[in-house]
């Protein structure tokens, strides 16, 4: 098919090669899924708001999604509500209350949120149908438990439902239907609950917004600085080069983990969540730009002495033109690979600081912050699902590594694999 052959640009060739790299494409796929769910659809996919808690369900194990009730009849998937009791050895155990089935529904109404930050919506992808809600209508709140049960019975609630309502705490006034419903409806804990009875799955989705975005933002900031400083010092040399190189060396000289801690110590401990986010970006970019600047400088140095740069200078092009048109594009393929491979470092940096309690603070979630509960190691034995956020960190890091590896192979002019295949085809 020689007649259809046309010349391809280097970028097109690279993408051709990348598509053949299965691990890289797999990594890309995982990343796309993670980023899309966490950024665009987090409020929709997460069954609950990240701070929606049920203290009585602290560390509830992952819900068992059932299709058969205890009599052996088949149903639409449902969950039972769970509660804690003590077994014969006085150990805490979770038991399912098999009297009332809570069917799992899709597209149900939950908390108000804004899809993409714009479209107001209250739809949630997954949730538990609040089957007891009809019995709670027509009451004048606030109300005590006894009235509630009586009222429910008058509206036709069976013994099972009444028993479940009877489990509500004594001597407390309930202020709204939503409050009661929140307390009695079984929770869908796909990954179990955390210490305050918040849904770990939802928190992972919301936490992904922080953990995943901080990698991109951090890389963007330090790469901009690194490219700028490295480019300028490589192109102009002289005193500027000397000073920036010494600064880079100094930053790279300090062990990065210690530098991270010291920088954190330099900033105030009490901050609001947005400030903390940008503080984390600042800390990691502060450490990260030096390495970038050095490599970019080296590349610019070698490109500067190339003939085509000399030629551009000879025909009187401005410095700015030479840098932006001739030099920076040459560093682009390196930049893309390097960016991809350095994102995991930023994600891990955020996780580390949050894990140590120096980053994102509690009601808000990030993957590192979620793992913080696993630090009480004697406790993990009883609720190992607390480790799940680590799996997400691992998956993300691995995907970026695979993708970066694939990109490097694709941009590497020495690997001519696809070029040859193309010639044959």
């Amino acid at each position: 098919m020689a007649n259809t052959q046309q010349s391809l640009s280097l970028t097109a060739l690279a993408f051709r090669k990348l598509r053949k790299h299965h691990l890289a494409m797999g990594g890309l796929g995982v990343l796309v899924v993670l980023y899309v769910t966490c950024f665009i659809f987090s409020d929709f996919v997460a069954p609950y708001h990240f701070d929606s808690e049920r203290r009585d369900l602290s560390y509830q194990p992952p819900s068992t999604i059932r299709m058969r009730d205890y009599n052996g009849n088949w149903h639409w998937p449902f969950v039972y509500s769970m509660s804690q009791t003590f077994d014969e050895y006085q150990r805490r155990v979770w038991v399912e209350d098999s009297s009332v089935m809570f069917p799992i529904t899709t597209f149900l109404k939950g908390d108000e949120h804004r899809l993409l930050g714009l479209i107001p919506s209250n739809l949630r992808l997954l949730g538990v149908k609040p089957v007891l809600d009809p019995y709670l209508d027509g009451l004048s709140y606030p109300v005590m438990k006894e009235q509630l049960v009586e009222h429910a019975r008058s509206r036709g609630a069976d013994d099972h439902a009444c028993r479940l309502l009877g489990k509500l705490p004594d001597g407390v006034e309930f202020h709204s239907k939503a409050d009661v419903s929140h307390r009695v409806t079984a929770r869908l804990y796909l990954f179990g609950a955390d210490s305050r009875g918040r849904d770990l799955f939802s928190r992972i989705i919301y936490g992904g917004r922080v953990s995943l975005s901080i990698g991109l933002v951090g890389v963007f900031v330090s790469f901009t600085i690194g490219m700028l400083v490295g480019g300028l010092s490589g192109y102009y040399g002289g005193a500027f080069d000397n000073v920036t190189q010494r600064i880079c060396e100094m930053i790279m000289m300090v062990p990065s983990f210690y530098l991270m801690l010291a920088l954190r110590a330099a900033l105030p401990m009490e901050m609001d969540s947005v400030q903390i986010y940008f503080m984390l970006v600042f800390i990691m970019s502060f450490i990260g730009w030096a390495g970038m600047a050095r490599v970019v400088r080296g590349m610019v140095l070698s490109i500067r002495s190339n003939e085509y740069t000399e030629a551009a200078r000879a025909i009187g092009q401005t410095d700015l033109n030479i840098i932006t048109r001739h030099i920076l594009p040459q560093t682009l393929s390196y930049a893309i690979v390097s960016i991809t491979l350095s994102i995991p470092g930023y994600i891990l940096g955020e996780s580390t600081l949050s894990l140590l309690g120096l980053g994102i603070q509690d009601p808000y979630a990030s993957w590192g912050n979620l793992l913080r509960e696993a630090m009480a190691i004697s406790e993990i034995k009883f609720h190992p699902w607390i480790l799940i956020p680590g799996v997400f960190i691992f998956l993300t890091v691995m995907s970026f590594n695979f993708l970066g590896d694939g990109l490097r192979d694709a941009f590497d002019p020495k690997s001519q694999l696809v070029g040859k295949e193309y010639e044959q085809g």
Partner: protein
Amino acid sequence: MTTYIVRRLFISIPLLFVMSLITFGFIRLPKGDVLAPYRNDPKFSREELRRIEHTYRFDRSFLVQYGYWVKNIFLEWPDTEGMAPAKTFGETLKRHLPTRLRLDLGYSFTNRRPVTEVISERLTNTLLLSVVSLILVWAVAVPLGTYSAVHQYSLGDKALSFIAFIGMSFPSFFLALVLMYVVSLTGWLPIGGLTSISFAELGFFGKLIDLAKHMVVPVLVIVLGSIAGMQRLMRGNMLEVLRMQYVTTARAKGLPEGAVIYRHALRNALNPMITIFGYELSGLLSGAALTEIITSYPGLGSMMLQAVMNQDIFLVMASMMIGGVMLITGNLVADVLLAMADPRISYD
């Protein structure tokens, strides 16, 4: 060679100096109360606190504080406070000259001990952990890398590459948590610390076994984390060397494959690894820090975290400086080792 080493050491002095100044600035930036652990202690009177503040120049500007700290690291100065004015020139001179050499990195206000004391204990623990892990990593990664390269694209190589990829992506803190979870399930090993409570009563071998048991988890975390990368590096080096012409020559002249690989290829493939060994040395301290904190191993890392949280400034300064010194030494060792291993490289 000696001149080279001396020159390198001299160059590093201003670097360390500026680094310490910047670090000091960072730590003093939040304007926290360094003496906070003493404020609520009835054992310290107001005058006592003021005296301590005055001794460390906390009542003066940041630069004076830094100057005082630097001045006292290696030299001891005569205490001129409250002394009668000097009469002779000799006396004046004597008051401005150091009395003796020593190492004093300041005082840790949370531990209430000199920093040098606190650090030396923790440093020993960290070095023990790091050196054991380093040896293990090398002992495992080099043979594995060689195997992978010699049997390139075999099933074993592919399996190793796959495991290495997973290993490189596995965050160390997560690995530590998972390992500790497994250990807590089985109950085979103790969790946290370096010694059991009954350590003092054990015999020599008992002590050794107790130590080893406590070190299994942190060592495993570090080793598993770094084997992957090292194995890949070794594989890459070895592959490069195996493509060299002298390897072909060796094969062509009929040397047995074992001799080709182990006598000719392996030695040359190890060359770049020697440089890496030097860089590893420099990363020893900070590499182990996070693992230490999570497995509650009493090393420098966990100390550093506490020091940072408690604004224990001299302790933070000292750990940063040790990190910096280790890095400089490591890089120097790397360059020197390389010159020793490779006759083509000389620095003179």
